[in-house]
């Protein structure tokens, strides 16, 4: 690379802390279709964007039933729905072109691009173009990839996001938004960390939870009729005895 890697500055967060989706960078967020709301919530909640300017959400047109962002739901994530501009592109090529134009203009606060499947047009060249555009306009660009295998790209970070069981409220109601995120790849930094994040409505941001404390299953599980007694450890772990 012609450009040397920027040295770690004093503002850089210490290793292990959760990095935000920083400005002037390209970020990839991978998620399954069932976790799409979580991926969007992660993107909206973590993106480092100005509060007043519009956010562009670009989506390819899909056949059959589609998702529509819900204004009230956006507001719960601290995003004013009036700021959202939704762009429907004909296909992936048009999506990337529109995304590039959006990233070049310094108008929007952030550009989020939804994409589904392999998306052949998104490669090293396309991602590099997006980065150059984002560096010029100093806005963050996030590409959300649904049901896709990670492909080599020039993106600064790559995340996988999925929903995680929430801490139940009273009366066994589902709790606050809880996500399980993994930083799969990061340019010029360590990767592979995982976090459990919970949306904190009072502070309007994600809060880190300890990774291992899953809510105890016996508290969570409803008394389902005909629950099967688990196999005992002796039966499963004991080596088979030779009979002969």
């Amino acid at each position, binding site marked *: 690379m012609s450009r040397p890697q920027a040295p770690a500055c004093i503002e850089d967060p210490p290793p292990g802390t959760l990095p935000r989706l920083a400005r002037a960078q390209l970020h990839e967020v991978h998620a399954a279709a069932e976790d799409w709301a979580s991926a969007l919530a992660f993107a909206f909640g973590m993106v480092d964007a100005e509060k007043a300017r519009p956010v*562009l959400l670009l989506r390819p047109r899909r056949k059959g039933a589609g*998702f*529509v962002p819900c204004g009230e739901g*956006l507001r719960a994530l601290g995003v004013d729905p*009036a700021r959202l501009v*939704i762009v*429907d592109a004909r296909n992936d090529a048009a999506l990337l072109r529109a995304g590039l*134009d959006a990233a070049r203009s310094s*108008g*929007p606060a952030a550009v989020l691009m939804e994409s589904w499947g392999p998306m052949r047009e998104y490669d090293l060249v396309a991602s590099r173009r997006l980065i150059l555009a984002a560096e010029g306009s100093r806005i963050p660009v996030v590409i959300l990839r649904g049901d896709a295998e990670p492909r080599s790209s020039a993106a600064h970070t790559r995340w996988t996001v999925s929903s995680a069981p929430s801490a139940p409220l009273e009366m066994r109601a589902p709790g606050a938004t809880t996500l399980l995120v993994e930083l799969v790849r990061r340019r010029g930094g360590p990767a592979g960390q995982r976090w459990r994040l919970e949306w904190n409505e009072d502070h309007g941001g994600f809060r880190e939870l300890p990774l291992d404390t899953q809510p105890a299953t016996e508290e969570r599980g409803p008394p389902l009729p005909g629950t099967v007694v688990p196999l005992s450890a002796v039966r499963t772990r004991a080596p088979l005895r030779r009979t002969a």
Partner: protein
Amino acid sequence: MRQGLSSGMTLADARARSPDLATAPHDPIADARVLEQLAGAMIAFTPLVALDAPDGLLLDVTGCAHLFGGEEALVRRVVKEVGPTTRHALAPHSAAARALARFGGKDDVRTLPVAALELDEGALSGLRRAGLETLGDLAARPMAGLAARFGELAVSRLRAILGETGSPVIPVRLTEPIRLETRFPEPLGRTDDALEVVEDMLTQAGRTMEQRQLGGRRWAVTLHRSDNQRRRLVVETGLAVRDPGAVMRLLRERIDTLSDPLDPGFGFDAITLAVLHADHLPSRQILLESGKEENADNVSALVDQLSVRLGEDSVRRLIPRDRHLPEKAQALVPALRLRGAPWPEPEDMPPRPLLLLDPPQPVEVIAGVPDSPPQRFRWKGRLHDVILAEGPERIGAEWWLKRGGHMPGAAGETRDYYRIEDGAGRRYWIFRHGLFSEKPDPRWYLHGLFP
């Protein structure tokens, strides 16, 4: 009229006289708009057209009649243009013409009834009680006495109708449409050259619009080819603009997305540019430091560009609507038409998902009867066990929009929404369409995904 109906009558009275009367609510704004349009159409007959509120037009046809073959022919053409219900009159001045058209009579204003003075009811009945029926009777009396008894207005109206004082016509000034045309002695063979000419024309149009404090919203460029083919390119902007560069970007975008590419053929003979829709756009202060114009909404140029390329319906914003059903509580509208509508302050209501499924997808559900949350559901062939659930949030059907919806049992199906979490930690918004009291076997639908 023939059945004894008149304006100012009560509806019940009118219906009693004519039972099969068709009625429509009065819309004065629409009436005024139609009148203005008619005034615009009358410009074909004379340059001096005045509005005679609320329902009349005054045309000064001095020196115009001979162009149409005399006054009678002119009147015939005007009446044909406007419609057969028109009442018209010709008179040497506007007050007399107005009185003659509205209060009938022959060409002589002296035979008109005193009602033509359009005084209030008290003064009119006073005139009639004094035995003064026509304007001719009035004109024979000394004016000073009339002014003393019936007010100065009576005298000034009378003198205007008789033509003793002037009654000027204040014409509607129609603004000249902004339209430019360039003709070439030799046809232009290259599209790029033609676009340069268009840019020059846009600069000229921008100057004209700046004088009028206008900015264009809709622009049409017509390229006339030497073989008489025409190509028309129309671009629209969300905000009024005068900047030729912004319009040129949109035009180039439009040319790129043409299904039938622009072909100069044997060259372009002429190019016309028209501003089809303009809005008020005040002159902007130029910032001293950067020399650039201030830019308030910096995403509008991008919205214009994407709207031209992908279609107006592909670039949209969310607006709130005052409805109860979740899928109708918001709408997606083209961002070109509307700049972010403010959302109302959040009410204290149960949480809404981040994504709504459009349309809601049917799911198979195992749930207790009648009002229990689902225990297990199957979506897209996969089984989900419900671990946590909250609800129901009951949302009634919009019975007030339904014909006969106020009758018991005809209101439509009530929805019971549950917020549920499955074993994998995914949160869904699911509803039962109908109560068990409303229908025997209500179906379940998945309507949203919570993050």
